[in-house]
């Protein structure tokens, strides 16, 4: 594809204002004053330089600890166990919606950490299931009272980014119906009865995120880097907006100049402005930082 150039201020007028908002989501400066009014959200960015071994594989112990530190910080609890009990508890049936895309899947170590904490919070083992493409036929998901949403961040040929918002698309019988206008309507999935009101926690895995795609499989190991982080929050829009800023910053660094994510991941903005699911404006997102700051990019 062409080396993209920044031209946000011209496109602002074309988009009738949406361009300003999307630029703000991605952390691009538009010279327009940031909007600080409106609802606010909180996410935790946790990073640990020991999260990956020499081969780039997640260290189970470190990743489990990262998850707990993030959850504790998110809920302002001293101990992670107390925070988990605010997420799920006895009587809950928990579906962990993961992502098993073969080229960059949710680390199994993280899935196991989530399962361990959920059961420690009092959920019966038989009432927890981890799944991706089989969620519509999974009996635990069918009676789930709570969902935990976890997936790696990556670029995507059609939606711009593969996000926590997008991760719920497997709850629909026909995902291509949400592909129009480069997946602008993904927020609508969060209004479906099988999803609405059930997602208790969103975990955007940024241990080895992908910042650029090539080819029909949209993956190249050349464009994955060891960020060693997780972005965790109750608000999926705020989680995704924060992750998007990190990806945008990485692209600008790697390509030596402004390199907008293409296509525009406007489903993040619209999940806020059209569907009211969460907050996309960084000015209204509090990012609580836990752990390493070196190389954080935002």
């Amino acid at each position, binding site marked *: 594809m062409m080396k993209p150039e920044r031209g946000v201020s011209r496109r602002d007028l074309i988009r009738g204002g949406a361009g300003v908002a999307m630029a703000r989501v991605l952390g691009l400066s538009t010279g327009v004053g940031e909007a600080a009014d409106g609802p606010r959200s909180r996410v935790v960015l946790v990073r640990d330089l020991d999260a990956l071994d020499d081969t780039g594989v997640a260290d189970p112990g470190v990743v489990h600890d990262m998850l707990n530190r993030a959850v504790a910080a998110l809920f302002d609890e001293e101990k992670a166990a107390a925070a988990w009990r605010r997420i799920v508890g006895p009587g809950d049936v928990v579906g962990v919606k993961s992502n098993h895309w073969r080229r960059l899947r949710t680390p199994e170590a993280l899935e196991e950490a989530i399962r361990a904490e959920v059961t420690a919070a009092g959920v019966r083992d038989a009432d927890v299931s981890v799944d991706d493409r089989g969620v519509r036929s999974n009996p635990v998901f069918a009676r789930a009272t709570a969902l935990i949403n976890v997936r790696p961040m990556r670029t995507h040929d059609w939606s711009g980014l593969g996000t926590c918002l997008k991760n719920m698309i497997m709850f629909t019988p026909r995902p291509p119906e949400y592909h129009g206008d480069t997946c602008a309507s993904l927020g609508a999935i969060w209004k479906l009865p099988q999803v609405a009101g059930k997602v208790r926690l969103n975990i955007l895995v940024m241990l080895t995120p992908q910042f650029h795609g*090539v080819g029909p499989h949209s993956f190249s190991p050349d464009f994955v880097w060891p960020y060693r982080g997780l972005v965790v929050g109750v608000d999926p829009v705020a989680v995704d907006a924060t992750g998007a800023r990190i990806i945008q910053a990485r692209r600008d660094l790697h390509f030596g100049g402004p390199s907008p994510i*293409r296509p525009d991941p406007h489903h993040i903005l619209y999940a806020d402005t059209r569907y009211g699911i969460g907050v996309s404006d960084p000015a209204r997102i509090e990012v609580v930082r836990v752990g390493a700051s070196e190389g954080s990019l935002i």
Partner: protein
Amino acid sequence: MLLAISLVGCGDRRAGSRSMDALRGALPETVGGWSKDGPAQLYDQDSIYSYIDGHAEVYLAYGMRRCLAQRYGGTAEGPGIVVDIFELATPADAYGVFTHDQEGEPTAIGNDALLRHGWLSLWKGPYFVSVYAEGEADGARAALLELGTVVAAAIPEAGERPGLLADLPSGGLVPRSVRYLHDQQTLNTELFLSEDNVLLLSPETTAVVARYKRENGSGYLLLVDYPDVQRRQRAEEEFAGRMLGGRSDGPVDLGDGGWYAVAGSGGRLAVVLDADSSELAASLLEEASPGGDHDET
């Protein structure tokens, strides 16, 4: 009449099946240190989603009919190589898919081919071919080139580039910036124009967009061919009305130095986008008109 159309449709499908069978048969059992990993898989417009998920929209936008996929396995722990052969609606559409990503080193395979680290792309006839290495491995580059060469040789006809390319002005054309497309969403993936289909693009329209860099600045030129004059006129009115405040009498400054312009003739619409100066916008528009400065791209 319906029976005749049905028979013609069946004929096209049979011809396509024969072509895919020939391509399947041309794939070697082994290449370098890699061997076929199971039989080739054939995907259609519905099942392609199960293979490449939302990425399928890129190919469907160019009338993808089928995709033949063959994986080659390397050593037990080593990365594989995946060959994907996409049959598009026309050779021009195969060229269009090829222009979706034009980074890499040009290589003499098919009509055009580009080789980057771990990925070879090429087009020939109505086929876009991707040969992709799943990771680093000794000999992978040679294997990609060999597979690409074999597949290209098995495609009987070269096909032609879109005729629209000849109408792009040559001066200042940024190499490898040209894209061929049909729809607004594909255009937006390259150069965001609008959330709405302000140019009334459709599968029946053909378009090329290219970037220019001259002394008086840089900008984009988009040429669109509509099926008839009436549709071009409606598109021109829509674009001028929605984007240019109703003006189509010359370049319009949309603020912060972005100049836009539109002019139509017959079924052809020329649109200048994001130009740095009114002079550049005016000259691109003039050169894009019939009799202007053109070149084969």
